[in-house]
């Protein structure tokens, strides 16, 4: 029952917060206890996952709608258990960073907890319909969080987010149903574990269309160029904690789906599509990076850098499908690593940006400057996140990107070279931004600003710790991911990480 507990603990806590969290103190206390408990549970799951045995563990299987073989089926494997942990980490960071929310705190924390539960559900569902239910469920808290506690054009952004995701998932649902009814009577199932390795030819419609249905949904979420335009708006207008969750785990749902479903269930179609995917990846990396340069809003900047960094994930996945090489498993492992590391790094960037905005009430880069003088701790957090984001060795960002480039170079040499240029651009925009906001002469206007309080430091530390742990000892993650991606590699006829 470990996984069910992980999924439903935040929901129970959400009900409690709504009912009991009349005051800000009470609401945030309940929420904090819930997310700390949740982090403990996810750490437990991560530690208890047996990498020697591999495969799917902690399986919970019940009939839900037996008429259509829809099951309540939870399980984790090496691919999902780190994502579960990531969601646990970011949930804590999100609550800590919302410590000062005063407006309707009980509703705010309720939605935040529901959001965490929904994302958790996505990562542990092994039944396609259940996966979809959680995928859709996440829309509601996001809509309310952005539109009620956001800033700027929050209504527009919330609606845009909703419609984009809903549109993507519309295609996904059709793809799922088509897949189900294409199977011969008696073998029909939505069970992802059972569908892995199955021959996907002879569906009701050309298999490519089913593949495309899933791809569109995940490409919107990841997001891939040109389906990314909702992201900067949503990020910019969302409250800090929601930006953290959005960058930290929601985008990862897209990458996770690509790995789990597109690569896992449809290796043949993925192979056909590999070159196109590589091109999209490079465009995402470079386009994202160039657009970052032009941004004057800190949040928009981080948002576009996400588009760029998620391009690396796409590239890593494409390389495996593109014929593969001896190092392909490394590339795929890197893509999975990038999902995790980007979650913590960009989460941290948004935390820092949120802290700056909370104090200066502006995110306009030209207005800022010399903030390291007034808020040294926040500046340290910013620099750690920034350097990790540009892939400095000893941080987790370096590990992920190195693995991706190692894996992809022999398959898509030119694409890798171009994408690697994205790292150079990242170094440019990160350092340039740091210079314009943190360094330079002291600005008298900001003299009254305070540095991070203990709770803010805690929020930063929650994310800094995994950045360095994974950066210094990547094996803690790569070993687990390797177990998860081996079956996917097998689908492409490639040897796994171990061999």
């Amino acid at each position: 029952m470990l996984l069910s507990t992980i999924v439903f603990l935040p929901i129970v806590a959400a009900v409690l917060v709504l009912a009991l969290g009349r005051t800000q103190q009470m609401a945030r206390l309940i929420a904090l206890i819930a997310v700390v408990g949740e982090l403990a549970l996810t750490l437990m799951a991560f530690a208890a996952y047996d990498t020697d045995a591999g495969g799917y563990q902690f399986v919970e299987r019940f009939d839900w709608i037996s008429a259509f073989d829809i099951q309540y089926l939870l399980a984790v494997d090496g691919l999902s258990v780190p994502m579960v942990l990531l969601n646990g980490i970011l949930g804590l960071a999100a609550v800590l960073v919302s410590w000062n929310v005063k407006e309707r705190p009980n509703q705010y924390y309720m939605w935040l907890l529901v959001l965490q539960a929904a994302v958790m559900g996505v990562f542990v569902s092994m039944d396609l319909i259940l996966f979809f239910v959680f995928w859709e469920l996440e829309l509601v808290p996001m809509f309310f969080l952005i539109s009620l506690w956001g800033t700027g054009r929050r209504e527009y952004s919330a609606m845009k987010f909703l419609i984009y995701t809903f549109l993507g998932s519309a295609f996904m649902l059709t793809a799922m149903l088509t897949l189900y009814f294409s199977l011969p009577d008696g073998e029909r199932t939505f069970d992802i574990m059972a569908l892995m390795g199955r021959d996907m030819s002879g569906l009701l419609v050309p298999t490519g269309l089913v593949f495309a249905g899933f791809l569109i949904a995940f490409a919107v979420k990841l997001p891939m160029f040109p389906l990314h335009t909702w992201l900067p708006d949503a990020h910019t207008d969302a409250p800090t904690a929601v930006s953290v969750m959005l960058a930290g785990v929601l985008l990862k749902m897209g990458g996770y789906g690509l790995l789990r479903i597109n690569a896992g269930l449809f290796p043949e179609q993925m192979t056909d599509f590999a070159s196109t995917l590589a091109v999209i990846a490079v465009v995402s990396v470079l386009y994202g990076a160039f657009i970052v340069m032009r941004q004057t809003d800190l949040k928009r900047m981080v948002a576009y850098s996400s588009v760029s960094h998620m391009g690396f994930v796409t590239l890593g996945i494409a390389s495996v499908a593109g014929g593969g090489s001896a190092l392909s498993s490394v590339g795929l492992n890197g893509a999975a690593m990038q999902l995790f590391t980007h979650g913590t790094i960009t989460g941290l960037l948004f935390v820092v940006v949120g802290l700056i905005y909370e104090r200066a009430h502006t995110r306009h880069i030209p207005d800022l400057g010399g903030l390291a003088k007034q808020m040294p701790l926040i500046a340290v957090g910013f620099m750690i996140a920034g350097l990790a984001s540009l892939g400095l060795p000893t941080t987790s960002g370096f590990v992920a990107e190195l693995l991706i480039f190692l894996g992809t170079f022999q398959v898509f040499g030119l694409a890798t070279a171009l994408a690697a240029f994205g790292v150079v651009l990242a170094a440019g925009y990160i350092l340039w931004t740091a210079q314009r906001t943190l360094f330079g002469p002291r600005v008298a206007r900001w003299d009254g600003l305070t540095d991070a309080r203990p709770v803010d430091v805690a929020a930063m530390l929650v994310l800094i710790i995994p950045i360095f742990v994974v950066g210094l000892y990547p094996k803690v993650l790569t070993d687990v991911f390797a177990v998860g991606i081996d079956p996917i590699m097998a689908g492409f006829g490639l040897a796994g990480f171990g061999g």
Partner: protein
Amino acid sequence: MNIGARDLFLISPELLLVTLAVVVVALDLVIRRKGIVIAVAVVGLLVPAIAGVNVWNDIHATGVDTAFNGALVVDEFALYFKFLTLAVLALLFLSSADYASRFQPFQAEFYGLLLFSSAGLMLLPAAGDLITVYISLELASLPVIALAAYEKMRLKSTEAGLKYLVLSAVSSAVLLYGFAFLYGATGTLRLISFDPADPAIGHMLINGDPSVPFGGVAVMVGVVLATAGFGFKLSMVPFQMWTPDVYEGAPTPVAAYLAVASKAAAFAVVLRLFYAGLDPAAADWSLMFAVLAAITMTVGNVVAIAQTNVKRLLGYSAIAQAGYMLVGVAAYVGSGPDAELGIESVLFYLGGYAAMNLTAFFVIMAITNRTGDDSIEGLAGLGKRAPILAVLLALALLGLTGIPPTVGFVGKLFLFNAAINADMVWLAVVGVLNSVVSAYYYVGVVRVMYLRESDNPARITVPPYAWAALAVTAAAILVLGLWPGGLLEVARQAALDLL
């Protein structure tokens, strides 16, 4: 023709319902306290319900039976709709007690007319021949004309009554014309027959009497005209024009009645006529319904976006929802293991749709009853002025959009399932894309409730009996969304009776 005790037993629910109508109207003459009259109307509904349970027990044990020489077919399919009608009626009485007090001194007649009309709606799904279809339809429609115009001092209400009168007359004429063709081509009015000496339309179509002039063409014309006739009741494009006008003008309980009970019965008779009576001609009508479904939902959803009046919005929403349900009607696959999927999904969706739509109408009724303002802007600030009503309306609207974990999601899942099972993947795609469009206006209403401030801070109070009705419908939205298995099984058994 002999009328035996058995015949009377089989229509005992309807007989008791009509008796109740007479009792309610008569009581009103002698009793001063209107509360008692309402209580009698609500509690009295238990009598036909118990009779219905009796009939169900009997049918369940002995199988389908006919009454009045085959004029009525009493099977689980018909009983499903009888119970649905009774439930809707009871909820409607409870929730509208406040609203209906404005009809004094004709309040009891209001209930009486609803009861008479419901008797027609209950007979309709049981119709065994075309004559019964027509008579039941008229019995159901005529009281509604008076009901729509019940607020006779209000111009829009009388307009609604007149519109419904004219359109009912036209649609009845078209329907009769279609029936005439079917009768001319086949020589029988029977939809279902268990007596070989008295064959039904379906048998005649299969056996194809060559002496019938214009055989095939006449059947087709009959099918098209009958579809047009029912199209009015279903709010199917291009016969949907009256819907928003009548919903807006008619008293809100009457609009709710039309949107839920009347539409359900219309779907019942369409399913009966086409699946049981005209299934040999399925090649003619299946694709026709598929195209009509696609057009209906698209028109409903697109036009709904521009609405500013919440009752009109629900009118267009009802058109769109009819489009979704027509998907199930179109999903004909002949015989086979999954042949009942289409009917089953329509029946299930009607149940869920009743819960969602009634919730929405009840909330609107409670609000407009206090504020007198039925514009969407009038719902501004509802999140603060009436937090529970706002949550319930949001739940209903998210359900109508099809977001889990509501019954709207599983309902649509089943409908699109049926479409894909019938090899109509394109129709499922049109359906899911329409859900995306609908998200814009459904969520738009939610947005107004929570994000717009109101200049009228008065809290909205709701009487306890209306709360009871709302609690039932709202609970149904969630319970059926999370545990759809029970209702689905009932719907499946009912659907199997048609095949």
